[in-house]
C-alpha cells in the first residue's frame, strides 16, 4: 500500500478518516465537559459576586470570547513552545478550546442561576437547607434546566470550532481530510463528506434543542 502522490480515495483510507472523526469527537467532548464544569463554577461565582469581582472576571472572559479562537490557538501553542515547554497538540488544543468554551458557558450558567427566583431559595432555606444544599438541590437543577437550549447551542458550536485545532497540528477530521486532499487531489468529495459529517451531528442536536425549548415554553 504505497503512499505515493495522487492516489485516489479508497476504502483503505476509512481507518484514517475514522481516526480523524474520533479525534474530533474526542477533543470536542473534552472541551465541552471541562468547559461546562468550569463555566458552571465561574457562572456561579459571577451570579454571587459583587461588582468589582464581576468587572475583573468579566473582562477576562470578554477577551476569551472576543479574540478569534484560531489566534488564541496559535498564540498559545507558539508561546508555550517558545518558552521551552512544547505541548502535544491535543493538550494545547484542549486547554484553549476548554477555556473558550468556559467563557461562553459561564454566561449561559450565570443567567441560569439568575433565573431562579430569590423567593424559591428562601423557601428552601426555611425548610432548614443550608446555603450549599440550596445550591445543589434547588439552584443548579432549576437554573440548568432553564438554560439547556443555550447550553446545547454552545456545545454545538464547540464541535464545529474544534476544526480550528487543526492549525496547531492536531489530527482531527479537518486536518485528516487536508492530508487526504493533498494526496488524492479530490477536494470536492472529501470536503463535502466532512461537511456532511458536521451537519449530521449538528442538525439533529439543534432540532432536539428547539424541541426542548418549545416544550419548556408551554
Amino acid at each position: 500500500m504505497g503512499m505515493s502522490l495522487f492516489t485516489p480515495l479508497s476504502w483503505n483510507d476509512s481507518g484514517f478518516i475514522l481516526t480523524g472523526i474520533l479525534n474530533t469527537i474526542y477533543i470536542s467532548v473534552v472541551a465541552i465537559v471541562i468547559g461546562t464544569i468550569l463555566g458552571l463554577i465561574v457562572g456561579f461565582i459571577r451570579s454571587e459576586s459583587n461588582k468589582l469581582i464581576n468587572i475583573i472576571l468579566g473582562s477576562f472572559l470578554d477577551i476569551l470570547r472576543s479574540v478569534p479562537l484560531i489566534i488564541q490557538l496559535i498564540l498559545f501553542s507558539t508561546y508555550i513552545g517558545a518558552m521551552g515547554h512544547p505541548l502535544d497538540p491535543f493538550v494545547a488544543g484542549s486547554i484553549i478550546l476548554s477555556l473558550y468554551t468556559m467563557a461562553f458557558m459561564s454566561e449561559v450558567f450565570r443567567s441560569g442561576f439568575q433565573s431562579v427566583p430569590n423567593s424559591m431559595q428562601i423557601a428552601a432555606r426555611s425548610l432548614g437547607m443550608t446555603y450549599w444544599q440550596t445550591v445543589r438541590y434547588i439552584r443548579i437543577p432549576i437554573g440548568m434546566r432553564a438554560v439547556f437550549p443555550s447550553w446545547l447551542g454552545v456545545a454545538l458550536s464547540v464541535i464545529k470550532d474544534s476544526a480550528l485545532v487543526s492549525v496547531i497540528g492536531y489530527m482531527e477530521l479537518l486536518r485528516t481530510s487536508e492530508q487526504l486532499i493533498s494526496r488524492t487531489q479530490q477536494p470536492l468529495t472529501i470536503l463535502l463528506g466532512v461537511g456532511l459529517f458536521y451537519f449530521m451531528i449538528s442538525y439533529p442536536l439543534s432540532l432536539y434543542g428547539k424541541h426542548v425549548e418549545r416544550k419548556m415554553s408551554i
Partner: protein
Amino acid sequence: MIKIRGVHKSFGDLEVLKGIDLDVNKGEVVSIIGGSGSGKSTLLYCINAIEPINSGQIIVDDIDVHNKKTNKNKLREKLGMVFQQWNSFPHLTVLENAALAPEVVRGLSKKDAIEIAKKELSHVGLGDKFNEYPTRMSGGQQQRLAIARALAMEPSYMLFDEVTSALDPELVGEVLDTLRLLRDDGMTMICVTHEIAFAKEVSDKVAFFHQGIIEEMGTPTEVLENPKKERTQQFLSKVLH
C-alpha cells in the same frame, strides 16, 4: 413556646417593627392582622431568622433565635413556613418536593423520607398527585403542597404568611380547610392573614398590627367583635366594608 420581647427591626431608615412583645403557647393559633406595611410579615421572617433583628429577643423553645451562635438551619427545622407564593420546586414531582428536605436536612433514608412525604401529602388531600409535576397543578393545590412540604419536616410550629393572598378566590377555601385541619391536629400556628372571618373562627388570639406595633391583642371576640382601639375599629370597618 415562642417568646417575642421588644423586637425592633429596620430596613435602612425605615423602622418596620417598633417593639413587639408576643407569646405563642404550645397548641395555640395566633392570627396577625393589619394593613400592608404594618410589619406583620416581617415579624414571621424574623422568627425563623430569615431577617435579622436590630434589638430585642426571640426565643423558640430554648433557642435564642438571633444569637450569633445559634444554628439557624437547626432552628428552621422546628419552624415550618408557608409563603404567599407557594414556590414549588418545578424540577421535582409532588412527592419529591415533599421528600427532599426530610432526606437532605433531617438525614432520613430515602424510604423513610418518601413515607413521611406520602403521609403529609395525603393529609392535605394530595394523595392522588404524587407523581404529578407541581407546575401542572392549580395554585390551591400547590399551596397545599407547600404546607405538606413544611409538615414533612415535622416542625413544632407553623408560620403562615398570607398564604391565601395570591390565590384565585375559588381556591381560597381548600387552603383554609387545610389550615383548619392543622388546627384540629393541635399544631401551634402563627397566621398572618387578611381573612378576618377565618381568623375569628380558628384563632385563640388575634393581634392587630399597626405601623410596627401591636395596637390591640386579645381573643377573637375582643379584638374582632368589640375592638377598643379606634385604629382597630377603622381597619375592621374597612376590610369588612
